């Protein structure tokens, strides 16, 4: 950490310089300090008590209190949502919190929550018991009704019943008949046969019947009817269980069982009860039943009005809670964050101050100090917390200061790997190279404009969606709106270069070619070259010609290679910045130089040839232009021989032999130098008699403050651990193997990666062809028609063309081009220089505390 100077402006090229700071916080301020720092979002605290169990930490009782409050809040929130009472959003309730936070607020809240919970729970209890009563009465009413039907059927149609009972499996029927026959007159008034009536869950009906049949050996007559679903009120306890969203209904059957003898009836009752059935005393006398029904109905009405009143009071209570519950949530969640953070801190011996350690961006130390002063003012004390920087050899976390524009680009890189501390961050270059490479594959003015405009819309209305919409797909696009915007802009640019607008071409200037005016139909016409030159991009005269594809293919293929080699060479050059920054200049000649020479001597030469070949007027030379692919192959296979017909320029053979030798030399150069350097460095240390721990801990000691024991202990451990790691790690064989792999990977990678950039050509070709096909299959056909039919057809075809353009060419092709651009950045570009072995900086924050957690609602 020799370079303590912080450049004036934050940049995206390297991650922020971080400092390990130590805070001494008086206990009475600790709470407000954490609050201020969490608002600031610039400190990442380390756990200073890693060996202490979570429940043995200092602030565990407060955390438990928060948990308890959270449980109550969850309960209340569920109650509120179950009643479909609106919850006021946090933004509106934030005023309720004014000036009230911290332990006192929690305390106050705790009692309020306990009271509310108790009240709501009590109301729930009484409501539920009332509901249960109501359900029972309703069931009783249904049973009365259904049994009434049985009885009346029995009286009016005894004869029919008798005949329908004539089955051998029902021995009881004889009794029924006998009974009915004997007391024909009494059938209307007193029913001789004893019976049990009640209701049971419809799903259990079959089992119930089966068991009864077996237990009573068939000595029963059972009748049942389904109770209408809507007739029964659904108790909240049951309705609450149905998370599926679909309204739950009680499906029950009313049954009546006739049997003979007290024993059997007892058995029936017992079985019915254990199967969860509800039994009701029913009188066989019709008048009594009538009376009972009236009584039950009137009681149901009474109960319903009581129920309604109870519910109203409960709703009022819950509505009152709903007014401020989001603010309560915020308080509790924030307090929990605060105490969890405090648990990471260490008590000093005197129990007067807390010691905290954490990472802060060096640039932000003044801001943090200001926050500490604010905190002490808030807490009403004069002594503010003390902050001082520590020197350390630990790897600091990586923190890139992004804004809403660069954030999405940076996350593309972070998805590959978080940069090592202060290494060159490809995210900076990605801002331009990513949309550019995308656009090379997506070049079309029209599609680019559609894409840019839609992204622009998102950008203009971005304030509306700051919090996200909850729609995952939309949120993803919204997050990448600036990427999409730039992709659209670049696509317009490349569209001009390719001269493609919805697969057609623009005639912005005079073409280089002129079509002959007199020609026979059906013959191939050859364009005449003129002195004019089309100033920008591809000449529109190529559009629709027979050899257009041959021309654009050759052009785009070469262009992809040129772009690719430049892109990769740039990536290799970025190594220099890393080597210089990490004070390893020897790696410039040990690693960077052979790599860039290898790359340039083969592929740099190739793109030189490409450009040279473009610049020569081969018609004037009077022979066929040489094939560059063959040239490259022969460069390897028969070095030193160039066929005079294929010669690009005089002296080609000698140059090529030189380049090939240069490339070959680079391989052992790469292979040997780095392990040798490492070995020499190690030998130097050993010769000087150091055993690792010496030099560094001396340096370290100088930076430490002597007063703090805990810290110096901690530091000491850190240093020892680190040194032991290094000591342990030095193994020549391992380094050699690593370097062999690295070298092979680089050399093969150069070839395969260059080939990989051909995807630029392939995708742009596919895109152009696809849009052309779409055009000729839809709108082009419609334009060929005339009259009314033509108008209608055009109308229909346009809608079809436009939908397909958006869905396939812009969205789907766009996604595929995006994916390929992503790959080119991750594999081809990052692979050349990017370590990506860092850990991200995760500062203390209250993010997410403003919202009610998702699972609750």
């Amino acid at each position, binding site marked *: 950490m020799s370079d303590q100077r912080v450049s004036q402006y934050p940049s995206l090229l390297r991650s922020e310089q971080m400092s390990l700071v130590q805070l001494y916080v008086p206990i009475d301020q600790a709470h407000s300090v954490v609050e201020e720092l969490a608002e600031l979002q610039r400190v990442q605290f380390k756990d200073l008590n890693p060996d202490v169990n979570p*429940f043995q930490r200092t602030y*565990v009782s407060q955390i438990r209190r928060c948990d308890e409050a959270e449980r109550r809040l969850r309960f209340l929130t569920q109650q509120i949502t179950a009643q479909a009472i609106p919850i006021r959003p946090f933004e509106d309730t934030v005023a309720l919190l004014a000036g009230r936070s911290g332990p006192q607020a929690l305390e106050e809240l705790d009692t309020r929550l306990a009271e509310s919970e108790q009240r709501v729970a009590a109301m729930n209890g009484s409501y539920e018991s009332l509901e249960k009563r109501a359900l029972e009465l309703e069931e009783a009413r249904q049973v009365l009704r259904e049994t009434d039907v049985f009885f009346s059927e029995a009286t009016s149609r005894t004869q029919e019943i008798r005949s329908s009972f004539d089955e051998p499996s029902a021995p009881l029927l004889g009794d029924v008949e006998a009974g009915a026959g004997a007391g024909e007159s009494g059938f209307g008034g007193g029913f001789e046969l004893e019976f049990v009536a009640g209701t049971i869950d419809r799903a259990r009906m079959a089992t119930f019947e*089966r068991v009864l049949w*077996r*237990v009573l050996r068939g000595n029963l007559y059972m009748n049942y009817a389904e109770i209408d679903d809507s007739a029964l009120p659904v108790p909240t306890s049951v309705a609450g269980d149905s998370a599926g969203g679909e309204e739950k209904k009680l499906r029950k059957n009313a049954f009546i069982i006739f049997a003979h003898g007290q024993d059997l009836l007892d058995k029936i009752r017992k079985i019915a009860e*254990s199967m969860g059935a509800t039994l009701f005393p029913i009188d066989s006398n019709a008048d009594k039943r009538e009376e009972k029904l009236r009584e039950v109905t009137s009681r149901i009405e009474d109960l319903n009005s009581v129920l309604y009143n109870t519910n109203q009071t409960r709703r009022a209570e819950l509505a009152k809670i709903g007014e401020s519950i989001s603010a309560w949530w915020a308080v509790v969640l924030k307090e929990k964050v605060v105490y969890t953070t405090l648990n990471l801190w260490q008590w000093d011996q005197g129990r007067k101050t807390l010691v905290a350690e954490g990472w802060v961006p060096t640039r932000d130390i003044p801001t943090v100090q200001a926050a500490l002063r604010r905190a002490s003012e808030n807490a009403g004390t004069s002594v503010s917390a003390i902050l001082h920087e520590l020197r350390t050899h630990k790897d600091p976390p990586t923190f890139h200061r992004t804004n809403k524009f660069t954030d999405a680009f940076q996350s593309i890189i972070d998805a590959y790997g978080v940069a090592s501390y202060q290494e060159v961050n490809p995210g900076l270059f990605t801002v331009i190279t990513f949309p550019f490479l995308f656009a090379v594959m997506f070049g079309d003015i029209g599609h680019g404009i559609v894409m840019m405009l839609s992204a622009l819309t998102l950008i203009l209305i971005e304030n509306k969606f700051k919090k996200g919409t909850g729609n995952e797909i939309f949120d993803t696009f919204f997050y990448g709106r600036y990427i999409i915007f730039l992709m659209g802009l670049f696509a317009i640019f490349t569209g001009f270069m390719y001269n493609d607008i919805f697969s057609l071409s623009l005639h912005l200037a005079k073409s280089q070619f002129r079509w002959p005016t007199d020609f026979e139909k059906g013959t191939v016409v050859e364009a005449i070259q003129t002195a004019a030159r089309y100033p920008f991009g591809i000449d529109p005269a190529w559009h629709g010609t027979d050899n257009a594809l041959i021309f654009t293919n050759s052009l785009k293929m070469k262009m992809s290679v040129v772009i690719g080699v430049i892109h990769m060479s740039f990536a290799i050059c970025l190594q220099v910045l890393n080597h210089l920054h990490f004070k390893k200049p020897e790696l410039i000649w040990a690693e960077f130089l052979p790599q860039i020479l290898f790359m340039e001597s083969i592929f740099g030469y190739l793109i030189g040839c490409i450009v040279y070949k473009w610049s020569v007027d081969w018609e004037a030379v009077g022979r066929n232009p040489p094939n560059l692919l063959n040239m490259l192959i022969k460069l390897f296979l028969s070095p030193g021989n160039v066929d005079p017909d294929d010669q690009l320029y005089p002296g080609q053979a000698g140059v090529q032999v030189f380049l090939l030798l240069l490339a070959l030399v680079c391989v052992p150069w790469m292979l040997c130098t780095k392990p040798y350097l490492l070995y020499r460095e190690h030998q130097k240390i050993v010769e000087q008699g150091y055993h690792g721990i010496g030099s560094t801990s001396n340096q370290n000691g100088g930076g430490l403050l002597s007063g703090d024991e805990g810290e110096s202990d901690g530091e000491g451990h850190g240093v020892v651990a680190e040194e032991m790691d290094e000591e342990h790690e030095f193994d020549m064989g391992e380094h050699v193997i690593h370097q062999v792999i690295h070298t092979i990977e680089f050399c093969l990678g150069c070839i395969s990666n260059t080939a990989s950039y051909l995807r630029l050509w392939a995708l742009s070709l596919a895109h152009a062809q696809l849009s052309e096909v779409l055009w000729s299959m839809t709108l082009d056909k419609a334009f060929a028609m005339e009259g009314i039919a033509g108008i209608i057809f055009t109308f229909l075809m346009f809608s079809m063309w436009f939908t397909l353009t958006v869905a396939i060419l812009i969205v789907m092709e766009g996604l595929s081009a995006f994916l390929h651009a992503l790959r080119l950045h991750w594999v081809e570009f990052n692979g050349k220089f990017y370590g990506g072995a860092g850990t991200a900086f995760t500062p203390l924050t209250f993010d997410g505390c403003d919202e009610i957690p998702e699972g609750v609602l």
Partner: protein
Amino acid sequence: MEALFFNSHGGYLEGIVRGFKAGLITQTQYNNLTQCESLDDFRMQLSATDYGNFLANETPPISTSTIAEKATQKLVDEFNYIKSNSVQPLTKFLDYMTYAYMIDNVVLLISGTLHERDTHDLLERCHPLGTFDTMPALCVATNVEELYSTVLVETPLAPYFRDCLSAQDLDELNIEIIRNTLYKAYLEDFHSFVLSLGAPTSDVMSPILSFEADRRALNITINSFGTSLSKDQRAKLFPSLGRLYPEGAFALAKADDVDQVKVVLDGVVEYRGFLEGQTGPGGAGAAGAEGATGQQAASLEDHFFQYEVGLNKLAFLQQFQYGVFYSFFKLKEQEIRSLTWIAECIAQNAKDRINDYIPTF
């Protein structure tokens, strides 16, 4: 061949169950749990494990029974998840696992009814894995014949029950006989099913089931001393498998006191010392429950549990077999027992015995 196609039908579930297994509470977590001062600490400590927030919505003070209940609920959920995703023959295998719980439930209900307990209470105490539709009707049965013909005839237990039909009245002894006869038939049936599944599964499951059989036999023998159970009857209850079968079982049937049982046990290396009060635990994977309290003689039951845990842990060393499913749920059950024990010790402030739990992994 078994391995070739195993993953196409059982691979996913095996992965799931091995994942579940990785979530079993480790020794370090047990150590942390035993240091808890109160059940609130206990809950907080558990929330750091695979159990997560399963107690978060409980109103304090939480009781030990709530913890056990919720933990069992988690086990049942996991079992049902596995079962609903399984195909034959794994489904059948899992079905077999539930039969043991069914037997327990049946016996619980019958004996409860015999003592005229409230049916609903009894139903609540039944293990949820062993429930079946007609279970509530058990409470009306007053004799064995009725029991069979009204309720059990349509359950999978019916074939096991046929041997019990000779017993007449439902009294304490007969219920025990029924339980053990059922269990014997069940173990034999399960064992033959496992053998029919072929190599890797039977290799793993056979020792486990054999041990289960031996445990039954030992328990029957020791518990029958001083009761009216005749030696002939006793011999009939022994399952016809296990390390002790047949010579050991024969000797057990003749045994008159614990010392004779001990002699029988000495014949099997692994079981040696189960009945020695002072010696350490036998068995391969059993370790360290008696670490803190050396004077407390580990009971026979503890030895059984430890040995069982060891066997079940071995099941995870083999792939392409169903033993892992059985073993995981047995281990999980043991874990719940241990958790309940620790929670109970915390609740009753019996810190000196808190280390008598049986750790799994």
